């Protein structure tokens, strides 16, 4: 009986330790914020947003997703119709390191570990000095399963995105599907 009890106690102890480990490892990414910039929590739920498009350049493969306001605007013809995206439109670019699939029947690049997540949010009042969009980037470290904010403001993408000012600063088109 004593033996049984001590085994049970060990079981509880192991369970507690495991829980402790899990809690220590699971970072609340939504508590992160770019210093002087955007909070990760402004993009809560991006994991389930709809696909806008994909891109790939060898080392990384990306899926670009948008919140409902963004998708609705694309489907209504923005930006080709000359109208801007509405305030509240948000998009996320999820970058994965690419690897060769070990299983696919033909040579195929597939996502390996997450590399980073980039965000854009449109708010013409808040980001009037950066084309009405705020930008943020969070790098991901697979070894520690943690995100880390990059930069010091919400304008990090403005310089690059000015090339597509005529498309309301959005590079990615919403292709047919």
């Amino acid at each position, binding site marked *: 009986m004593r033996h049984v009890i001590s085994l049970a106690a060990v079981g509880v102890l192991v369970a507690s330790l495991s829980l402790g480990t899990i809690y220590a490892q699971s970072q609340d990414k939504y508590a992160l914020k770019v210093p002087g910039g955007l909070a990760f929590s402004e993009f809560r739920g*991006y*994991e*389930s*947003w*709809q*696909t806008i*498009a*994909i*891109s*790939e*350049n060898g080392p990384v*493969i*990306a*899926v670009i*997703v948008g919140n409902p306001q963004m*998708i609705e605007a694309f489907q209504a013809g923005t930006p080709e119709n000359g109208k801007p995206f509405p305030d509240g439109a948000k998009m996320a670019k*999820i970058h*994965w390191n*690419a690897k060769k*699939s070990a*299983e*696919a*029947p*033909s*040579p*195929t*690049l*597939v*996502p390996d*570990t*997450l590399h980073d*997540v980039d965000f854009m949010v449109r708010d013409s009042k808040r980001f009037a000095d950066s084309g009405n969009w705020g930008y943020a980037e969070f790098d*991901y470290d*697979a070894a520690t399963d943690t995100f880390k904010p990059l930069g010091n403001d919400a304008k990090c993408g403005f310089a*690059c995105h000015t*090339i*597509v000012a005529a498309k309301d600063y959005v*590079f*990615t*088109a919403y*292709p*047919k*599907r």
Partner: protein
Amino acid sequence: MLAVLAGTAAFAQDKYALTSPGGIAFNDFKGYEDWAVVSSARTDEVLKVIIANPTMIAAYKAGVPNNGQAFPDGSRIVKLQWKPKKSTEAPFVVDVPDVFSQAFVMEKDSKRFPNSGGWGYALFNYDAASGKFTADPSPVDCGHTCHVAVKAKDHIFHPYQTR
């Protein structure tokens, strides 16, 4: 007037009226345009985004297939395939979608598809010139034959990627 109407009707195809030679109705996948992302992939010929219906996404999030459980009946997954092109705007070299080429679909129904691991497979091709979808004439693309390679993962190649 009639000609205009007829022209419009001919142009606006109801893709969801299509059925594959294997008997898979495109209509079973209605609304796929709005499903959430599972993963993505790149071959020499195409850029792919893999999306799934809420039933399947919920199963992935619950740990399927790594927890040893199978995807539930009603799970549906679609691989969207675009021809790639070099972006003419990006400040770095990157391939982005050009024309849409195919929707490769799978649906789980263990009663209906007992001989192919519970999954039904179909391929719908898109012709950008005519703006029309057609069911691929082959019974299944590689379908079950290819997916048997990942039978241990309930025949699904792609895991739900961290994001």
